[in-house]
């Protein structure tokens, strides 16, 4: 028996994955709704159950900066944040990936102020989509646990060496108790061997890290970063497959739900997927040919998987949980449209923004959106995209 099934708060499960990964260095600053993750890690360290240095920094900017210092010595490094904290880190997010530090970060997705909101949406991470990190979204507690553990193996792969963010919806995922299957330490150790940094700060072999680049070199460095991120795709899938073979839980860049024969496809990210499944079940039962795609891999963007996922569908409805105020489209819609612009110009793609700042998204919302979108698809879209359910 390799794993045990337990009921556990998802934040605790994430901390447990970090413990199983034998993370060595953690720096974090409290922010709701990420706090339970680092609180639990603090107590694991305080009780000697996790042999690690836990640094209580004075801001998120310093949290990530400290993680960079930790990772530069060759320590396996973890942090977690949310919303304003991720925004405060913004400057350092780009540097962490450009300097190729395999830091693992859990982001409990929460709305960015203003107005201040502690509740869930994706505006925090969408403001950080171009930071050059690997980014995945999880849908439930099991996935949060699995992907946190796998993240270390992906990030530290010598052909990858990039930081990685595991996105999990704040409160509606992080704070719920779910039934999930854990791994035992031996299995985790076999899956994830100790980290050996190729380059580290070492007086016996001194290196200069973080040199600046003149125009003659800057573009080449960015290209190398781009190639590393794009090429990480194969390694990510390899790690997911290895984990799948080990646990029976297989993951794909784009997950399919009842897509066979679907004429209309919904696309969601994060834990809206499970709600949308309920709606799809009900619509299917009513004879509607509706299916669901769940975008798990956000960076690198899985173009091919998404194109192949269309099958014979004529209408794709993208559900965003963030805005690009005054822009051409909300973030996910913009990328999806770009994905199909040349590849499948006949595909109709409509966008709906839902669930901002903790606004509840019940199954009925998806049913209403599908009905509205089908009408729009026939008559032609009335606007570029909709912010669904705005009152007044």
């Amino acid at each position, binding site marked *: 028996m390799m794993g045990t099934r337990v009921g556990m708060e998802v934040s605790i499960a994430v901390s447990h994955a970090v413990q199983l990964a034998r993370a*060595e*260095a953690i*720096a974090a600053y409290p922010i709701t709704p990420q706090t339970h993750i680092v609180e639990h890690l603090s107590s694991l360290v305080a009780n000697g159950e996790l*042999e*690690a*240095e836990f*640094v*209580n*920094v*004075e*801001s998120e*900017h*310093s*949290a990530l*900066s*400290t*993680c*960079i*210092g*930790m*990772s*530069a*010595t*060759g*320590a396996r*490094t973890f942090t977690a944040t949310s919303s304003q904290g991720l925004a405060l880190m913004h*400057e*350092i997010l780009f*540097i962490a990936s450009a*300097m190729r530090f395999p830091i693992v970060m859990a982001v409990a997705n929460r709305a960015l102020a203003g107005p201040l909101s502690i509740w869930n949406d994706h505006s925090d991470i969408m403001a950080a989509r171009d930071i050059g990190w690997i980014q995945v979204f999880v849908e439930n507690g099991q996935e949060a646990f699995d992907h946190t553990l796998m993240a270390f193996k992906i990030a530290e792969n010598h052909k990858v060496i990039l930081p990685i963010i595991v996105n999990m919806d704040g409160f509606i995922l992080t704070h719920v108790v779910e039934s999930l299957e854990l791994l035992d330490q031996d299995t985790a150790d076999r899956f994830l061997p*100790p980290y050996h940094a190729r380059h580290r*700060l*070492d*007086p016996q*072999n*001194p*290196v*200069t*890290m*973080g*040199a*600046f*680049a*003149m125009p003659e*070199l800057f573009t080449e*460095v960015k290209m190398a970063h781009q190639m590393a991120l794009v090429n990480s795709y194969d390694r990510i899938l390899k790690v997911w497959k290895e984990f799948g073979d080990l646990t029976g839980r297989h993951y794909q860049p784009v997950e399919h739900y009842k897509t066979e024969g679907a004429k209309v496809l919904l696309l969601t990210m994060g834990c809206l997927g499970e709600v949308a499944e309920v709606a799809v079940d009900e619509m299917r039962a009513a004879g509607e040919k509706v299916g669901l795609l769940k975008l798990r891999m956000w960076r690198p963007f899985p173009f091919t998987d998404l194109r192949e996922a269309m099958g014979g569908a004529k209408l794709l409805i993208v559900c965003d949980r963030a805005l690009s105020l005054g822009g051409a489209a909300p973030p996910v819609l913009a990328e999806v449209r770009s994905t199909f612009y040349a590849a499948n110009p006949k595909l109709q793609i409509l966008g709906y923004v839902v669930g901002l700042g903790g606004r509840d998204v019940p199954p009925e919302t998806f049913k209403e959106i599908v009905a509205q979108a089908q009408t729009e698809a026939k008559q032609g879209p009335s606007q570029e995209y909709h912010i669904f359910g705005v009152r007044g």
Partner: protein
Amino acid sequence: MDKFGFAQSQKFDTYASRLMPREEYFTSGHRSCQGCGEALAVRWVCKAIGKDAIIAHATGCMEIVSSGMPQTAWLNPWIHVAFENTAAVASGVEAGLKILTRKGKLTGPMPKVVAMGGDGGTSDIGLQALSGAMERGHNFTYFCWDNEAYMNTGIQRSSSTPYGAMTTTSPPGKMSIGQATQKKNMMAIAVAHGIPYVATASPSYLFDLYFKVRKAIETPGPAYVHVLSVCPTGWRSATELSVRLGRLAVETGVFPLYEVVDGRYRLTVEVPKLRPVRDYLKPQGRFRHLRSKEIDFIQRHTLAQYELLLQKCQALYPEFPSVSPSAEEEGQ
């Protein structure tokens, strides 16, 4: 004694300069300006910290002149991340070394952890990260290269710019005397954190600087060393006067050399009779616009500050218990 106080410098002869390390860790070929007091300070600080040290450096003059990809002037392992976070990066380096040593992944004595930044990166934008790192008690030494303005971006004022100085963002004019505020007292801020070692230093007093650096890096816990770095480009002074201006800063009482060990102040370079501040201000173009009344104000302010420092040096300090009950037991 000549106009610039050469007599004071004669006491250098009492030190054995031949015993100083010949090894260079901040090597030639970097792109600092002619007469850069900061580069001189960095070079000697690196000699003092030696090979077994890891340096985190803030964005700023010394980073820009020394680390243009694919070249480097640093023979120590060195990391630059951003402007305001170098104390946080150093915190991480120290924590990483600690855990890897504890787990047996690193063997041998732990390398010294050093953070360096300019006065902007220290007293302005990096103050929060530095305060956090000092409060948490990381075993590291922070060096502030204080050239008293944002020289790298073109001589803009910082909170470390002295009263009356002309910078590109504190220009003198009909409505302005130049910098209108007094220089931020970073030393007092560092001391207020209760850290075990705090010192001022100057590359014009190399031996004083050298021994302070040795003390700072050997002190367990956080240490802070504030180095006055003469900047001919920003101070509008002759390049050949850099070392001399550093001495004049000390001899006029503008930048006294002292250390604060476990909260106790001590002057390390005593100046029996302070020279008038005019001697220090006059060779610098950044003070050229000052009239007698402002110079007189600076004089009075300098003397008052100096007197306050002397009083701190003469104060009677109570005995404090050690850092923790367990540390006290170990000490007994």
